[in-house]
């Protein structure tokens, strides 16, 4: 195992003008998504226009933060040194109750007990004053 001092900090999300409201939401423990004011649909991943009707008239909406696991993997090989203490760790696609799927880690459960279809809900992990990363735990 790599010595603690050799482990770099985890990378931070790339925050841009169009996804900033999402990261402002996680800071106050809200899972937000863009909803189109024209066709009324939600979309992920965040983007500057509605991919369904191409309107740029939208608002950010607080979602339930609830969903189910759509698929999941476990990284056994270490690709990024920042995760040296977490190998093997999981990454999942979570299908939100509202429809769209998002990538996240699943916490509060052994990797061997994760199943497709498992109901989960968002939890929020504060990294620093700017960034809080949403993860999901079984509910």
């Amino acid at each position, binding site marked *: 195992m790599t010595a603690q001092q050799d482990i770099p900090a985890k990378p*931070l999300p790339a925050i841009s003008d169009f996804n900033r409201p999402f990261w402002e939401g996680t800071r106050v423990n809200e899972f937000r998504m863009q909803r189109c004011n024209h066709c009324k649909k939600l979309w992920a991943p965040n983007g500057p226009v509605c991919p369904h009707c191409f309107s740029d008239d939208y608002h950010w909406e607080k979602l339930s933060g609830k969903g189910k696991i759509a698929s999941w993997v476990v990284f056994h090989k270490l*690709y990024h040194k920042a995760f040296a203490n977490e190998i093997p760790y999981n*990454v999942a696609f979570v299908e939100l109750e509202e429809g769209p799927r998002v990538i996240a880690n699943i916490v509060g459960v052994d990797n061997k007990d994760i199943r497709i279809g498992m109901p989960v809900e968002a939890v929020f992990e504060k990294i620093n004053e700017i960034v809080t990363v949403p993860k999901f735990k079984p509910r």
Partner: protein
Amino acid sequence: MGTMRDRAAIIGVGNNQYGKMTAAVSPLVPLAAAFKNALADAGIQRDEVDGILVNIGTPFGVDYDQVSEAFGLDIRFSDQTWTHGRQMSGVLAHAAMAVDAGLANYVACVCSINWARAGTVGDHGQFQDDREIGGAHFEHPYYGMTSPGGAWAMAARKYFDRYGATSADLAEVCVSIREHALRNPLAVMKKPLTVAEHQASRYVCEPLHLYDYCQTIGGACVVIVTTPERARNGPHKPIYIAGHQGMCAGRAEATGARPGLGIHQQDESYPVPRERDLLVYKMAGVERSDIDAFYTYDAMSSIVWMALERFGFCKPGEAWQFTKGGRIGPGGELPVNTHGGLLSEAHVSGWNHIIEMVRQLRGECGERQLPNAELLQWGTNRGDSLILRN
């Protein structure tokens, strides 16, 4: 409606001797060998090449301007695709359109990869990781989603769960493709593989085992394209590009999956195949049942299933049964990747598949030669496809 059918031909192919390279080896070095081999194979001189198309540029490949300078070419038509695997068939189509349109007489399609220069694929800081909507393989570095293999593993897990397939079923794909490689002196993998060895190998990104992953070692391929008129003067039988369809993109598509699987934003009720997934047969004027062997981008074993389903060789959810019992291996009903593919020959982004298809259609493949090979298809889980004929 326009058609590309038989309006361009491949007259020369060349590759280097595939094998491990250190990061100190410039990808220009293996490419020089491949380029010389392709020119000799095509029976043309270096100064006749007036078009160059590059698939995979810097940092681990080559760029069009650098190749042209280094090799002393005089180019009037050039272009380069994303530094990425997969775009191969579109590059070949671009070459065909260029010679047909009179933009160049002889187009060299080149790809050289030194994977050692990529570091560990998926390290943060790679070009694909830093898009604010996630990378091309759903890279989200802050969640540790930092490897292309993660995307394929996500789709494989979903497929297992939805259709009742297992990793041992997937192992049969790896075993069959290895069987092909054993008949190919160029292949880097020289030993037989068993389902048991596959199952005993370590996980890289679970549920994918080590042997589900391709050989990212490095290599160079050159494919020379010209018009049918010029092709007839060459030393070999021209190999015609009979049909092509492009790579699909949009919310129905996802890396590692085929439409309708339910990965990323895919709708699970999406029908497979759709009419546009089969246009390549129409353009070539052939039926799927006429295809003598199938070639597909096998960076991970699981996308072989996705491609077979996408082109209708079997129904959605049935590829894991279709690939059992050596049906895609040597002498099988539908041989797949008769050179050993990315899994067992080498990862040259699919260009090594095209070279194999050309050699099979010319009858140059010795021990692994397909009997009466006349029509071969390239097709991937992303929908792009080529049909080559002799």
